[in-house]
Each structure stands twice: as structure tokens, then as C-alpha cells.
């Protein structure tokens, strides 16, 4: 039994990667790169620039170690911050040591019989959050409305990430800077695409503003 010396080095070397090459890191034209502070540094309401293409659910992308391509991509994402392999490293979720609080919200998916909880304090950017949701709900195609041309029709159904804020309104995820989102989000729902036209966001949906 040979050991493969040095052949199986850790998957990622985030510093050396070209952003545009990976699926998960696309920005709007002219916007700045993702930083580890995510949207917080950028002042305006539309201040963040990460978009995520969460077209997934295909087992055929699994490599022999059971890792999906998305998990590998997720870890190759933004430098300076670690995109999540779900549940790794194994630190207990409820007590984020060294952090002031943890912000657990329930995540529901239309049509799926189960809920998950995520701790929003564990992420720094929308990209990380959506990558993690992608891992957890790996059967569904989750589409980010900022990225229409990347629509994946594999499953035929798309899910749009939405959330309920402090005022009880349902908003599209990605509408406000990250920190504002963390503070105001009460729960998350991945809605079937057909229902999103009924949402009443504070800012108009992105697709209506795009020229």
C-alpha cells in the first residue's frame, strides 16, 4: 500500500486563483472585488458585488472522494475568507467562541420537507452564505437574480433565495449590504421562481433596473 506523498495536498490555495475562472465569483461590471468584509465596507444599498451561480444538484460532478465540484469551488473562492465546507472545522454552532453573538435563522425550501438552520455570523459575504446553502440543499438549483445569463435549466426549476426582515417583509437576498442583512434577517426561504414576482422589496428587483 503506497502512500501518495505530496500528491494529495490540500485542495485549495486561494491566493493563487484567478477569480473569473471559477463559477462562484462574478461581479457586476465596474464593482470592486470581494473582500473578507463582504458588503459591509461598501456604503450604498447596492454596495455588494458578489454574485453566486448556484446551479447544482448534479451528482455527476462528484469526484471520487464524494466532494462535489461546488464544494471545491466554494473553497477556492474569495481570498482572505474561507468559503464553507459544511460543518468543517467541527466547531459547535451555537457558541461561536470569540464572537459576540450568533444569529441562527431557519432556512426553508419550497417543496422540501425539511428545514435547516444557519448561523449568519459564520459568514462574511453573501457568496459564502449561498455556497453553504448550495451544499445543504444540493438538489435544488438556486438562482441569484443578478446573474440571469448563468441560469441552469438542468432541473427545470429554479429557486430564488429570499428572506423575511424585521418588518415582516419578504425581500430578495442580496438586496442590501451584508451586515444590514445579517441584522435584519429573521428567516430565509428559497422560493420557487414563479412566486417571486409577488415580493415587495424595498428597492426594486434588480432585473427591472438592468438595462
Amino acid at each position, binding site marked *: 500500500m503506497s502512500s501518495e506523498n505530496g500528491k494529495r495536498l490540500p485542495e485549495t490555495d486561494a491566493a493563487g486563483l484567478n477569480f473569473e475562472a471559477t463559477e462562484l465569483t462574478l461581479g457586476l461590471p465596474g464593482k470592486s472585488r470581494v473582500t473578507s468584509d463582504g458588503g459591509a465596507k461598501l456604503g450604498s444599498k447596492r454596495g455588494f458585488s458578489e454574485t453566486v451561480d448556484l446551479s447544482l444538484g448534479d451528482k455527476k460532478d462528484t469526484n471520487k*472522494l464524494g466532494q462535489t465540484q461546488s464544494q471545491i469551488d466554494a473553497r477556492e473562492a474569495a481570498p482572505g475568507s474561507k468559503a464553507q465546507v459544511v*460543518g468543517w472545522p*467541527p466547531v459547535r454552532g451555537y457558541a461561536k467562541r470569540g464572537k459576540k453573538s450568533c444569529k441562527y435563522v431557519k432556512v426553508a425550501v419550497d417543496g422540501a420537507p425539511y428545514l435547516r438552520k444557519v448561523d449568519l455570523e459564520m459568514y462574511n459575504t453573501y457568496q459564502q452564505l449561498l455556497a453553504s446553502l448550495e451544499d445543504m440543499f444540493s438538489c435544488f438549483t438556486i438562482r441569484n437574480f443578478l446573474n440571469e445569463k448563468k441560469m441552469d435549466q438542468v432541473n427545470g426549476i429554479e429557486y430564488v433565495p429570499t428572506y423575511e426582515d424585521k418588518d415582516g417583509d419578504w425581500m430578495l437576498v442580496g438586496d442590501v449590504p451584508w451586515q444590514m442583512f445579517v441584522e435584519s434577517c429573521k428567516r430565509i426561504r428559497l422560493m420557487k421562481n414563479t412566486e417571486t414576482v409577488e415580493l415587495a422589496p424595498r428597492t426594486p428587483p434588480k432585473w427591472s433596473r438592468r438595462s
Partner: protein
Amino acid sequence: MRKKMACSLPDEVLEHVFSFIRSDKDRNAVSVVCKSWYEMERWCRRRLFIGNCYAVSPRMVIRRFPEVRSIELKGKPHFADYNWVPDGWGGYVLPWIVEMVGAYPWLEEIRLKRMVVTDECLEHIAKSFKNFKVLVLFSCEGFSTDGLAAIAASCKNLRELDLRESDVDDLGGHWLSHFPETYTSLVSLNISCLGSDEVSLSALERLVGRCTNLRTLRLNRAVPLDKIAYILRRAPQLVDFGTGTYSADLQTDVFSNLAGAFYSCKELRSLSGFWDVVPAYLPAIYPVCSRLTSLNLSYATIQSPDLIKLLRHCPSLQRLLVLDYIEDSGLEALSSSCKDLQELRVFPSDPFGVERNVSLTELGLVSVCLACPKLQSVLYFCRQMSNAALVTIAQNRPNLTRFRLCIIEPRTADYLTLEPLDVGFGAIVEHCKDLRRLSLSGLLTDRVFEYIGRYAKKLEMLSVAFAGESDLGLHHVLSGCESLRKLEIRDSPFGDKALLANSAKLETMRSLWMSSCSVSFGTCKLLGQKMSRLNVEVIDECGPPDSRPDVCPVNKLYIYRSVAGPRFDMPPFVWTMDEDYALRDS
């Protein structure tokens, strides 16, 4: 030749002798000696430990043990701690409570771990068990402060209420005020998991004041620093104390008041809490440090120099939980100050960051292992490791019983040689002959499992992630580890062959968890059909597993032995594989 009866002692004598036999293992051994011992033992067993609530049914338990006073139950698999088990998976305690209300009216103690407890359960407990004394909810969820209010209002003989690490819904209502003014029997209260606004301070102070037997008090974050002195002065007999937020603007009168209050606690042996700690207030605890045996600083974001100063005052320390801010230098200081150290846990301050943020390496762990002769239990998060360090640890600390190492980046090789860490972990299992629990990390081939199978004969629990190369790895463990009870594996290329070849072994274990491995759906079905005393559960969030070919790997698999048959409280995303699977699912 006629055999003599094993024993013809009168029942009263047997019962008296059995009353000295406390451990479950011994009780179980006693019960299989002969029929009369079985009968006598079952009538006088008072404490029950059920490591998997689905291994047996409440009715079976009650039928065999009619006079139980204390029960401990565990529900979800361990990996649920890291959010890998979806909500709704199971672990409901209500069916147990409902049965016990009728069968055990004199039940005194309930201890639950990773179970779903509802307010309805708590209300049942409050109303039905007149002599109820101890409630421990470790890492549980599903209940609110309303349920706690019911317990507080009705359990006149309550001694212990411990909510450690549970997830409690705050519905307001000042549940603590529901302890009547006549209630004085509290000995232990742990509310450290409660959120910010769930405790009324004045009710807490009055409660502490009138419960003169209080020995353990662990407050939650909401209790401010300046209230601690008042509380401590009312409970100078405390042995175990957990602060709330340990932060305030530095004021000399607050400080001296606090130091004086700590000084008056001559029995204090254990401290915890320390959220948001301000280093300037740490010296207030110096009066008690020389007697401290346990210190939990895992929420304290203090840096190494302050930690070193503190640890110098704690020569009797046996147990330390701390963040990696302690760094190698702090661990070095620990190793020279605390020669009685038995347990060390170092947690990551920035587990999800890519860059290393603290100067903590394998050297810190090595220095403690070299210098602390009583060290038995280690949990250590770090970013680099070498075989040489592991071998040094193994050779110098053969008395280790628990060794859990988490190298933060998966599949990290020995940073000196770039080789896998097989040899290092191999040394650990070879030298530490009493090792009961092991967690692996780093780059590992099948070889490490060969070592584990060969040497780890006392190993009871093994955690594996991102390791191994083939089924041979899993086969080594299942065929070699004679004492193995719990095995949990994620993201490792283990599959069908090893499981099928060792299926009988699975009946000797409590449970096996495998997620993101290579076990096919077909094998799951086969195991479920073949092994009637195993529950083979497939967790699949993408839909019924038989909508895909049999060769497809399942996402999550949980196998556990059970005499109760398949459970029926499963959510839609969990399927039990058994003979009826095909019939039920069509």
C-alpha cells in the same frame, strides 16, 4: 453430576449486595449470571443509561425495569453538533415521558443529550413526578422559557437544573420568578446557554439568596459584571461559578468589590463564563486561583500575555479550556505552572479564516504533553502538525485516554516532510494503550487505519474526516478495534465491501455514521434486509433514494443496533432499509 445452584442466598441479601453495584456494565454482567439474579437485578435497578433512544422502546424498558428513579437518554448522532443532521431528524423525548409518567411516578432524575424536548414534555415532568430532583438538558432543543416556568413553579424538590448548551426559545415571562418564595432546595443551576434577555436579575438574586445549598451557578451572558459581586456574597459556598459578561469600564470600587466577593468564596474550584472579558478585571479572581481545578476560558478573547499571568496563579489546575489566543508561548507557561493538568482543550478563534491569525502550532501541544505527567485528555485545533510531534507526544504521554486533533485545513500533510500523518497517529495508538477516544485529521492514507486496527484495542469512539484511500481502511477499523462502539466518518472513500464484510461487527457497536462516503444504496438495502437487529437509515434530502440506480452512493447513512425495530417518527427525508422497505415504498 448435578451442578450446584449459582446462589441460594435470600433475596434481601442479594438485593443488599446489588445495591453496591452501581456501574451499568457491572449491573449488566450481574443480570446474565442466572435467572434469579436477572430477576432480582431488574427489580432493584434504579439508574438507567440508554445511549441511543432508538435502540430500545420505552415499553420494553419499563417492562424490564419497573422501579427506575433516574434515566439518561441520548438522541441525535454526535455529528449533529456541527449542523450536519437536518432539523426534524428525530430524537423526540415525548414518547418516553408519556410512558414514564404512568410507570415511574417516583422518577427523580432525567438527563437528556441531543434530544428534542418540548414544553409539553416539561409540563408533564412538572405535573407528574412529585419527587423530581434533577433535570439536565445537554444540547437539547425544542422548548421555551414557558416550559422552564412550569418546572420552576411545580418541582418543589428540584435540586438541579442544567441547560448546558441547549437551544431555548425566549418567550419572555420571567420564568425564573416562577420559583416560589418557599423554594430553597436548589443545588445546581446552569443557565449559561440562555440568550440576552431571558433572566430577571432580581428574581435570580432572591433565588440565590434563599438557596443556601447552592453549589453550582452558571450565569448567562446577560448578567453584567457589577452584579456578580452581589451574587457571590450571597452564595459564598459556591464550588462552581460561571460569570456572565465579564466586561465593564474599569472602576476601582467595582474592582475591589468584585475581588472581595471572590475572596469570600473559599470553596470555589471551578470558573467559567468570561464573555467579552476585559483583562483589567481578571486579577479580581486571583484570590481563588490557587484552589482552582477547572477553568473554562473558551469564550474569553484575551491574549497570551494576560493568559500567562493568570495561569501562573493556578498551580492546582486540572482542566483548562481556552482559545488559541494562548499561543505556543502560553502553553509553554501552562506546562510549567500547572503540573496537575489532566485535560486541555484549545479552540480556534478564527476557524473559518484562511490565514493563520495566532502563533499556535504543534509545539504548544508538545510542550504541554512533555511537561504535564497527568495529562489524559486533549482536544486541539491547529493549522500544522508533524509526525515527529505526534510521535513525541505518544512516547511521552502513554497515559492519554482521549486524543482529538483537528488540523483546520482538510488533508494537511506533515508540514516538515510533506508526508501523510499515518506514522504519527500510528504512534499515538501504539503507545497509548488505554486510548478510548480518537479524532483524526490531516493527510491520511489507509495505513493509519491499519495501525488503528492493530493497536487501538481499547478504542471506543473514532472520528474520521477526509481520510483514507479505499475500503481497506474501514475494514482495518471494523475488524481490528475490539472495543469500538461509535464510529463517525465523513468525506472518506469507504464503501460497500468493508461494510458488507463486517456487517456482524455493526451489531456489537452502538452506531455508525457515514456521510459523503462511497456506500451505495444497494448495499444499504442489503444490510437492512440481512441484519434484523440493525436499523439502517438513509438520510437523503434529494428525494427517495430508489429514484436513482442502486450503485449511486447515498449522501448520509446512520446505522445503529436496536431491539425495537425500525422507528416510525422519521421525517420524509429519512428512509429505513429493512425487509419491508421495497413494499412500503412502492
